[in-house]
C-alpha cells in the first residue's frame, strides 16, 4: 500500500513536468505543424541558462528561472526567424531535415561550450524531503509541479481567451484567410514558435536543478514530448496535459509492478493501443482539410 501511494505521488509529480514538455510541443508540432526536433535542445538550453545564471553569475534562483525562460523565448524566435521563415510553404520533409540539422548543431554547440561533464544547480530548497506519512517527495519537485501547473493554465488561457491566441488559432487554421483579415501572420509564426520554445526552456530550467544538466539531456525530452503530443492529440492543450499525466502513470506503475526494464516502452505501448482505437489521439481537434 505504501508502495502504491509512493508510486502515485511520483507519477503525479512526473506528470506535471511531462505535461509542460507536451504543451510546448503541441503548439509547435500540433498547431504549426513543424516537426520540431529542437524542442529537447531548447529544454537543455533552458537548463544551461539557469545553470549559468545561478552558478556562474550568482543570480537569485527564482529570478534565474525567469531569465532562462526569457532567453529560451529569444532563441525560439531566432530559430523561427532564421530557419523556418524561409521554409514557409516548403514540404514537411524539408522542414524536418532542417530541424534535424538544427538539433544536431544545437546539441554539439552545447557540448562545445559546456563540455560533456554534467553540471548541477544549487537550489534554495531544503535538502531533506517533504514527508507525508509513509511517502516523501523533495520540496524542489513540489515547486516544479506547482509552477508547471501555473504555466499550463496560463498557456491555455493565452490560446483560448486572448486576441493573440485567437490570431494564432486563425493563422494555423487558414493562413491566407487570416492574412486577408489583417492578421500579421509572420509575427504570429514567430510568436507561436517562441512561446512553445519558452515552455520547453521553462521545463529545462525547472528540471535542471532536480536532475543534472548535460548536453544530451534533450534527447529524452524530445522523445517524451512527441509521445505526449501524439497521445493527447495534435494541437490540444488539454490533450497534452492529460497525455503527460497518463504517460507518467503508465511509466511509474508499469515499472513498479510489471518490469522496470520496459519502463520507457510502457508509454509507447499505450500510444500504439490508443492510436489503433482512436487514430487522431485522445483529444484532437477536428481537422479541416482543403
Amino acid at each position, binding site marked *: 500500500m*505504501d*508502495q502504491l501511494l*509512493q*508510486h502515485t505521488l*511520483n507519477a503525479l*509529480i*512526473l506528470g506535471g513536468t511531462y505535461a509542460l514538455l507536451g504543451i510546448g510541443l503541441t503548439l509547435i508540432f500540433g498547431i504549426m505543424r513543424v516537426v520540431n526536433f529542437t524542442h529537447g535542445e531548447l529544454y537543455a538550453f533552458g537548463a544551461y541558462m539557469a545553470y549559468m545564471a545561478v552558478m556562474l553569475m550568482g543570480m537569485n534562483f527564482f529570478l534565474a528561472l525567469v531569465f532562462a525562460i526569457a532567453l529560451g523565448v529569444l532563441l525560439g524566435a531566432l530559430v523561427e526567424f532564421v530557419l523556418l521563415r524561409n521554409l514557409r510553404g516548403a514540404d514537411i520533409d524539408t522542414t524536418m531535415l532542417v530541424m534535424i540539422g538544427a538539433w544536431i548543431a544545437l546539441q*554539439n554547440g552545447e*557540448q562545445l561550450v559546456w*563540455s*560533456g*561533464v*554534467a*553540471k*548541477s544547480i544549487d537550489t534554495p530548497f531544503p*535538502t531533506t*524531503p517533504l*514527508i507525508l506519512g509513509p511517502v*516523501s*517527495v*523533495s520540496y524542489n*519537485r513540489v515547486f516544479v509541479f506547482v509552477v508547471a501547473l501555473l504555466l499550463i493554465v496560463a498557456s491555455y488561457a493565452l490560446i483560448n481567451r486572448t486576441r493573440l491566441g485567437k490570431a494564432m488559432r486563425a493563422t494555423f487554421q487558414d493562413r491566407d484567410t487570416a492574412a486577408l483579415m489583417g492578421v500579421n501572420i509572420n509575427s504570429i509564426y514567430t510568436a507561436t514558435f517562441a512561446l512553445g520554445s519558452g515552455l520547453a526552456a521553462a521545463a529545462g530550467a525547472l528540471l535542471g536543478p532536480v*536532475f*543534472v544538466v*548535460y*548536453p*544530451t*539531456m534533450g*534527447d*529524452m525530452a524530445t522523445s517524451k514530448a512527441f509521445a505526449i503530443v501524439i497521445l493527447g492529440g495534435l494541437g490540444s492543450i488539454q490533450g497534452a496535459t492529460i497525455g503527460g499525466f497518463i504517460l507518467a502513470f503508465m*511509466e*511509474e*506503475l*508499469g*515499472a*513498479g509492478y510489471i518490469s*522496470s*526494464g520496459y*519502463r*520507457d516502452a510502457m508509454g509507447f505501448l499505450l500510444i500504439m493501443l490508443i492510436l489503433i482505437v482512436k487514430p487522431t489521439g485522445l483529444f484532437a481537434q477536428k481537422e479541416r482539410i482543403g
Partner: protein
Amino acid sequence: MAMRSLTLATTTIASAAMAALLFAGAASAQDTIKIGVTQPLTGAFAASGNYVAYGAKIAEEEINKAGGVLGKKIELVIEDNKSNPTESVATAEKLIVKDKVPVLIGAWSSTLTLAVMPKLEEYKVPMVVETSSSGKITTSGNPYIFRISPTSAMEAKAFTPLFKSLDIKKADFLATNNDFGLGASKEFSEAAKAAGVSVGVTETMDPKATDFSAQLAKIKASGGDTLFVTTAVEQITLILKQAKDQQLKARIITTGGSNSPDQLISQAGDAANGSMHLVFFTPWFPEAVKNPDLAKRFVDLWNEKKHPVGGLTEGFRGSDALNVIVAAIKAAGKAEPEAIRKALWDVKVKGINGDIAFVKQGPAGKESAQNEPSVYLVKIDGGKVVKQ
C-alpha cells in the same frame, strides 16, 4: 535536377578520393607509430571518454619525452564513437583501414566494445580494452582482445569477503539496461547468494533515463539493507539524490569503477554521504596503490594540465592502456598487428592500477587476454573520500 546532382555527387566523390590520397601520402612520410583510440567523446558517456583520452595523451607525451619507442615517436589518433555502437564500429574501421594503426585502445562501454570486436577479427588487429567490464568480451573467443580492466565477475569476487564484514543481509540491485549493468547485477547477485546473502529485487533503467522514482519505490518496498548500483556517474548522481528524496534507508554501493566519487560529492552533495564505491584507482591516497610513484606522478601531470579532478578515476585507464601497448611494441621490435598481438601476451607492465599481465580466458584455441587488476572500495563520508 537529376543531372546536376549526379555531377555534384561525382565531384564530391572525386575530391574525397583526392583528399584521401593526399592524407595517405602525408601519413606515410611521417616517422611515427600511430595508435588508434576510439572513445565516446560526445553523447551520453562523453565525460568519461574524454577523461580516458586525456590520460592516454598524458602517457603519449611522457613516452615521447623519453624518446618514444623503436626510435620513433608515438602518435595517438583519437576518434569519437559518439557513445553509439554503430559509430564505434565505423571509427575502428576508419582507424584500421585509413590510418593503418597496428593496434587500438577502446571503446569505453561494454556495448561499444562488443560492437567493435568482429572488426578486430576481420582485420586481425588487436585492441587493448581499458574500461569495459562485461564478461562476454573475454569469453566469446576473440583472440584480439586484451583487457586491462576487471570483469564484473572479478569485481564481485573481490567484493565477496565484504558481504560479511559490511554485515550485508539482504541486497537489492539497480543496473543500467545494457551489457555493463546486466552483467554486473548478475555476477554480484550470484556472489551474494553464494555468500548466504538474500537477494531482493533487481531493477533496471534505460541508460539515458533521469527519473528512477518508480524503481526506487519498489526497492524501498523490498527492504534490503544494501543497494548495488551499476551505471555511470551521471545516473549515480541522480540515484543518490532521488534515493534521499524517497528516504531509502539502504546503503548504496556502486560497482564498475566509472563512479567518480569526486564528481558525486560536488553534484549530489549531502546525498552522497555514506555511499560506497568500487574503484580501480585511488587518487585520494596514491600511497595505497601497488605502484605509488607512478600514481603520484600521474596525479601531478593531470593537475598540471588542469583536467577536472573527478576525471582521475577514468583518466588512468588511458595511460595504463598506452603503456601496455608501448611495452608490447618494444618487445615485438616492430609495429605490426600480429607481432604486437603476440608480444602483448608476455608484457609485464607496472601500471597506475597495479602490475599488468595477461592470462587466458574464453574457449580454448581462441582465448582472449584478461588482466587481473586491483579493486578498491572507498566510502564518501562528510563530503570526503575515505578508505573503507
